[in-house]
């Protein structure tokens, strides 16, 4: 009886320390989804109704729901660039709410990855003080707080493509793949801007890929080089909807036209990229096409607070 108890305890210890063989890891496709950095006001921070002469806290929850940045494959740590972005606060009269910071850095947040399927999470707090309304002879004021994020982001889209140097050849040979009319990439790639479709054309001396890009998020795409200068108060058509495209296929870097940055019109754009065609003798093969999109992104959240003069 004692032996059985001992065996049971040892088993339990093994389980509790995780010494049992690991169950098979469930593969999570973290490069899915159409969101990047997502914000929301924490419940009742601030409340919908407040009184004057008291501190006010705006607590913003920030989640990285996208897949950028990724952990270093060697160290496992996410390479989070400093100054990834900034949160800007506006929409209210600073004569009545004093001491609120106008902007705050977005804390470093890793993207969704194999180790963290939910992505990074942090909170940012804006604290200020509501002035005494009696001194200004007002009874109530409805302040609208607008928090706007401006951040750099990247999309990495990967699609297995068929490279067939002679797709129109009449020679009878076994092909491992055929070039389809288009490759459809649905559901996004874990970023607000996504590659939605790739069309492959084999030309005489090169292979051409027409890459379709779309803003699937709820914010605005901004030229990454103007992000820290114009976002969010000076955004206009000169600095909006601009994406930088690069990529590789079969060991070659994509050579794209028009040159970067690519302009999105109504949130949609396309670019034609080419790579040299492999030698004719080579038969068709499959290989991954990797497309990198770099851009700035901005989205906003808003909350209205009714501030009353203390009776």
């Amino acid at each position: 009886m004692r032996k059985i108890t001992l065996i049971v305890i040892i088993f339990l210890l093994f389980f509790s320390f995780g010494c049992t063989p690991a169950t098979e890891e469930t593969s999570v496709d973290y490069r899915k989804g159409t969101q990047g950095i997502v914000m929301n006001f924490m419940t009742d921070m601030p409340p919908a109704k407040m009184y004057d002469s008291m501190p006010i806290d705006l607590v913003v929850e920030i989640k990285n729901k996208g897949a950028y940045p990724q952990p270093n494959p060697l160290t496992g740590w996410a390479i989070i660039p400093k100054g990834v972005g900034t949160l800007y606060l506006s929409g209210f009269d600073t004569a009545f709410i004093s001491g609120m910071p106008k902007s705050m850095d977005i804390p470093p947040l890793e993207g969704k990855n194999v180790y963290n399927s939910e992505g990074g999470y942090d909170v940012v707090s804006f604290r200020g003080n509501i002035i005494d309304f009696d001194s200004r002879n007002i009874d109530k004021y409805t302040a609208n707080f607008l928090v706007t994020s401006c951040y750099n982001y990247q999309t990495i889209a990967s699609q297995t493509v068929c490279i067939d140097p002679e797709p129109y050849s009449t020679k009878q040979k076994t092909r491992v793949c055929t070039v389809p009319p288009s490759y459809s990439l649905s559901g996004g790639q874990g970023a607000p801007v996504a590659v939605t479709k790739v069309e492959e054309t084999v030309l005489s001396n090169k292979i051409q890929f027409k890459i379709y890009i779309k803003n699937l998020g709820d914010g605005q795409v901004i030229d990454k080089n103007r992000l820290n200068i114009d976002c969010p108060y000076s955004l206009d058509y000169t600095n909006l909807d601009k994406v930088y495209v690069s990529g590789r296929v079969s060991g070659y870097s994509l050579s794209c036209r028009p040159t970067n940055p690519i302009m999105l019109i109504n949130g949609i754009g396309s670019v034609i990229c080419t790579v040299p065609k492999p030698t004719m003798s080579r038969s068709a093969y499959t290989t991954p096409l990797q497309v990198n999109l770099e851009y700035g992104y901005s989205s906003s959240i808003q909350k209205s607070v009714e501030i009353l003069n203390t009776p």
Partner: protein
Amino acid sequence: MEIRKTNKNRINLMIALLLSVILALFMSGCVTNPFITTTTQDDFRTGSQGILMEFLTNAPPSEIYEEYPFQIGVILKNTGAYDTKNGFISFTIEEDYMELMNQNQGAVSFSLKGKSVSIPTGDQLIKTVNANTKKIDEQSEQHESTILTSVCYQYQTKKDVTICIDTDVYDLKKMQKVCVVKDITLTPQGAPVAITKIESEMLPAEDDNLIKPAFKIYIKNVGNGEVIDKGKISDICSSEPIDYKELNIVDIKVMLSNEELECKPEPLKLKDNKDEVRCILEKGISKDKATYTSPLTIELNYGYTYSMSKKIVIKK
């Protein structure tokens, strides 16, 4: 008998437990107490009356004999949301048939607090004067006479509205806006003169980097009396002659955030009991700011008067 007692105890215990849970929920703040609502001064700024006046029952009486003493009494109620000081009430009688016992009582001063958190219904007071009927004509059996009472007081209308300052009128910036510029229609603000509508506009300035917020404010006399110059209230409730220039005068003060706006015309002279005033922030606001909301505070200061009368029959 014992079972019935036990059941009763159980029910009492359950009720006590239920009440404790409800009390705990209220105290913890998890449940909003429906019986407690937050009230501010703005909640009292409703209605279209300032000071209301009524004759007391039988003071004066409807019928009275000649050479007989009687009282004229009125009840004054401040049904508006502004405290009035140094108001006047005057009594006018047909001097051939009646006389006031104390000639100084022709105009009596008063102060009355308006509706507020501490006096939700507004303050009220009673003023009485003693009078006497005189002898009527030999040939008459009776004479019908009129007693006129007038009240003159300073009053204020105040309204705060949150308005939208749009620094990007032509939508050139591609930034989300927290508000849109729109007209605001208002109900009376607990005073006889009301702000009925505010039209907002963001005007271009000489300096390209600025916008000038401008407002057209509509004002109307919604009470049952006349607007008068606030500095002439004692004259109007007396036998002093009235100049037409002293009627329908309203002083206006408009603040946007903590800046006073320039208003024209100032003071305002109502025509047909209404008018509008245009106010502008000449200093302008920088276009570099994002669109934001700001409080616009409008204060109207004026004098107000209204009268009522009662017919009495003096019998022989």
